[in-house]
């Protein structure tokens, strides 16, 4: 899922400093699961903003709402009708939600409450880790299902660099060397020999370096 984290309060307070009527909109999708923008976080943020604004001697009215998703039109389009009630809408969804509201709700002044960080998994309560870079050209079948693009500090394609030591990456002892893991995984699957193949230089166009990406499925188009 998409992992996100709330922006620092200071930044948010500056963002809404001139807002008199604010709607905080959460999302029950990924950001709710990673405890960044669900119902609970919306009410915490609302309370914090009320207090913060009071402390700064400013008036603000804050309403709270949490949508099922902010990445589908049917959930965000109703915001158009409420646009006139608020000076601004603070979205607690990932960057997709903020963009989508901006795209579809011309009168809504939308702002982000979160920093969208990566595609990751929940390792344990309170810990998430990046697993995928969304590069658009998956090589996981070659690497035992472990991604060197997202999980190697240098996105190497052909095995561990000279900084791999004891299974750790040289940039930080807390970071695993994914190439060591790939090697171990393929060894245990008796596929070690595959690593002798040189993985050719990558085509990064699918990773966004070819411009904004878009996907079309003819069969589903209306």
């Amino acid at each position, binding site marked *: 899922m998409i992992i996100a984290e709330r922006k620092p309060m200071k930044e948010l307070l500056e963002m809404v400093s001139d807002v008199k009527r604010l709607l905080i909109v959460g999302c029950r999708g990924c950001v709710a699961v990673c405890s960044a923008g669900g119902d609970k976080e919306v009410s915490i943020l609302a309370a914090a903003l009320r207090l913060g604004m009071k402390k700064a001697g400013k008036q603000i009215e804050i309403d709270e709402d949490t949508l099922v998703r902010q990445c589908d039109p049917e959930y965000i389009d109703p915001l158009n009708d409420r646009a006139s009630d608020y000076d601004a809408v603070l979205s607690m969804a990932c960057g997709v939600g903020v963009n989508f509201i901006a795209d579809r709700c011309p009168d809504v002044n939308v702002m982000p409450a979160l920093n969208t960080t990566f595609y990751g998994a929940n390792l344990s309560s309170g810990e998430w880790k990046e697993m995928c870079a969304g590069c658009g050209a998956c090589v996981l079948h070659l690497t035992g299902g472990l991604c060197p693009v997202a999980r190697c500090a240098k996105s190497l394609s052909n095995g561990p660099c000279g900084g791999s030591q004891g299974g750790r990456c040289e940039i930080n002892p807390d970071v695993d060397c994914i190439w060591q893991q790939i090697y171990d995984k393929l060894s245990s699957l008796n596929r070690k020999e595959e*690593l002798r193949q040189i993985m050719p230089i990558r085509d990064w166009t699918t990773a966004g370096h070819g411009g904004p990406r878009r996907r079309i499925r003819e069969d589903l188009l209306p």
Partner: protein
Amino acid sequence: MMAGSNLENVLRSGTFAVTGELGPPKSGDMEVVRKKARILKGHVDAVNITDCQTAIVRMSSLTAGLIALSEGVEPVMQMTCRDRNRIGMQADILGASALGIKNLLCLTGDHQKFGNHPQSKGVFDMDSIQLLQMVKGMRDDKKFQCGEDIKKAEPRLFLGCAANPFADPFEFRPVRLAKKVEAGADFVQTQIIYNIEKFRKFMEIVRDLGLHERCFILAGVTPPKSLGMARYMKKFVPGLDVTDEVIQRLSDAKDQKEEGIDICVDIINQVREIPGVSGVHVMAIEWEEAVPEIVKRAGLSDRPEPTGIEPVLTSTGAIEEAVDKARQEAKIELEGQLKKAKAEAQATRDLLAKEKEKVASEISGLKKQIEEAKNMVSRKEAEIRKLTEELKKAKESMDESQAVKPTVQAKEAAVGVSPLLSAREQQVLNSLNKGLAALKEVLGLDDAQFEAMRRFLEAEFMLQLGTAVVQAGPLETAKAESEVSRPVVETPTVEPAMEVSEDKRTERPKEVVNLVAKGNVALHNKDYPKAVEAFKKALEIASDDEKAKEGLEQAREALAKEKEAADKAVKVKEVEGLPPCPEELDPEEWKQKWIVRFTARGNVALMKGDYEAAKREFQKALELDPDYEKAKDGLRRAENQEDIFVPDVELGQEAVAAPKAEKAPESQKPEPAAEVKPEEETPPEEEAVPAEEEKEEVAEKPAAPQPKPKVEISAPAGEGVKDLSVASLAKDEPPLEERAKGIPEDVYKEPCTGVIQSVSIGDGDKAITVGGETALPFHTFEGDIPNMPRTAYEVLDAPPEEWPECLVRYYSDVINDSAAWAKKCVSEFGAEAICLSLDSTDPNGPNVSSADAAQIAKKVIEAVDVPIILWGCGNAEKDTETLREITSLIENRNVCIGPLTDANYRTLGATAMAFQYPVVASTPIDVNLAKQLNILLENLGVHLDHILMDPSIGAVGYGLEYTYSVMERIRLAALTQQDEKLSPPIVCNLGREVWKAKETRLPTDAELGDQERRGVLMEAITASTLLLAGGELAIMRHPKAINLTKVLIDGML
């Protein structure tokens, strides 16, 4: 031939190759590169030019490589994938090739995190293997990476790569090298080798893969410059295996640099023997000077004549032209210099001849002068002889006259010579003076010398007179004893016997004369004190002796002068025995310093128990200043052999020096607090039920560290309410002041400057007050803690649905009646306060109406007389309604209401103000939010001494750490930064947090142990932790947990 570089030529010829390394500067200074290149030139076959190694910005490897090339040193340009994408890299490769660079080392590059721009975006468009592929394609297939043709002049480059035999996974390392060779590497340079065994194994696999026949392998070596560097590499450079042997060799070495070079040479000699190694790569970055020495000692200094090194920017023709030009210029200059030198030599010769002549004439002049001087000397000698003759004559005539003089006259003459002398004597004296004056002139004496001489003779003259008188007397005469020993005059000596037998009257003048003479001599010798003494004595005998008076005066004057002049010197003398006083210090200050220093040394010795040494030091100090109290004191202590107390000598405060006479009794028991005895005879007073000590051996008890206070927890036996007692903690440890004896107070005390508000809840003598302290929790030694932390029993307004049986059982008989429940808590369990939780009013739950809830609350309040906290359901609107309803029913009882949040603080705050109730201000767990709500309440008119803060808490295992740190920060802000807005006491509603944790609900099993004990401990630990963080009021559920907490509070205060 791939590129025809020198390195390639050397390697292909089978010669053992040597490459070096050159780190470009962190500036645009070309000279740095030139200088390093010159050091390496002729000692290595090629030099690696690093590409911003360790991701630090430096002159680009291409540029520095070209500079090296212009110095006649072949570069191996390094290229990393970190900073450029395939477009930039191919562009640079074309440029490098165009300008004559023929070796390229392809690397992935160090991660930007290690460098000086860690925020930069790492490119890593490809990795090193793909880079090799790309360049090989450009060279061999004449194609760009995209597949497009390179129409003309493809880059001809000898391609290198790196290999690290010491990184993980080891087995994959040769495979990875194989991939690099496959991708296009012609040569490989390895990571620095210290662990030769591992490298040997690596090479075995490499040979098995046949790689040594497909590429040239150069072993990487580095001389460790110092032990520190070796240690650093071992510890911090990933993939660098520095062996313990190397560390040992360096630490044993006298000269580490020398040893470093030797280590490097040894490694070279060993790797040379390994089959498949074609050369060495000597990396001595920032120590390039070591390379020639290493190469020499390794027997590799005979490098083949370089080939293929052609700086492209200056073409060959241009070079020849330039060389010719330079040669001619040099020739012209040389010729010019020769001419000039010749002319100079001629001039010098001429000058010499002239000098000679001049000197010769000077010498003859000098000879003449000497002759003249000689003549003059002989003339003067004659004069002196003549004068001496005259003197003798004069003396003789004087002796004659004295022989016939009566004694009286002689006496008179001695007392006041000149006025009373006879005409003849006067004459003699006059001629004497004249003679002396002439003598002075001849001998060239100055006035002072002359005066001394004159006095001397005068004294002698008088002496002779006296002696003559004595000779005239009836007794045998002798010569007067005198210190005078001038060679000009014979020293007369006197037998001591003479003085005794002599008539006093006749003796006096002689003595006076003697003394005056002594004085004069002393005066001349500049021994002024002696002179003064002599003159004084003379005056004692003959008080109006003019000569003596005059002499005395002179001597005194001289003495005064000397004193004045030598004032400083005298002072230095005062501090004799000390090292010389530094110029910038006054000798007096210097002395003071030494007094302090000696005293300090004494104290140190005293501390160590070396009383003798201490005594010596104190005595030294007292020699310098006998009144120095501290030294006196120290000396006394040293003599009495007292110990410990260390006065702060440097500060020189008298107060510090005040002696602390008692010797600490050595037999004092160490920390009785360490042994905690369960004290059965003092059960906590709150205990309503007498204790039945059925101590069951708790499973974890033996594992618990012995010194910790152990608290016996008995499992509920039978029907359960009778065994809630908890053993007290031992309290008989000595006060801190006693335990910290000898340690300055400011070391362990850090008194706070703020004060916590004290808040009272309840009425009459059952009212409790919390807060009011001026110290951190339980820091009784740092300030006042007037009120101990309190506990409150939580009572629900409806039967709890989710409480585990082990908790409910204590209240099962009263569970349906909140008032009876509260009563039981007070009468049976000794509750200090009750917290009535109005959970059933929750609109999302049972949604009991405010009116009904108020009735229940009213009953509870009337049932007990202990303080009551009314805790709403957490719904701001509903709580406002319910609490208002209650307050309208209860009239004069002083209850505490809560929680007040940012949503309802106005309405509830107003209610509380009207009735003067204390309130609970509740905020999400955050210091600033808590402070903000306090400010808002205060603005509303609620005084801080009517607020209890609820910072939102978590149970152990459920965010307790976070809670702790937030509470601690609140408390520190209040106490150490006087943040008044954070000074209200903290209430911790923790029972509900603990008992909703799943660990309190899981049944008893082998792994998790007894359910009840588990829950009790979780609640007690949560409570005690929060009290330590600054909590003043803990709202709890389980009676046993409350008792445990109370015992802890009691034991610690």
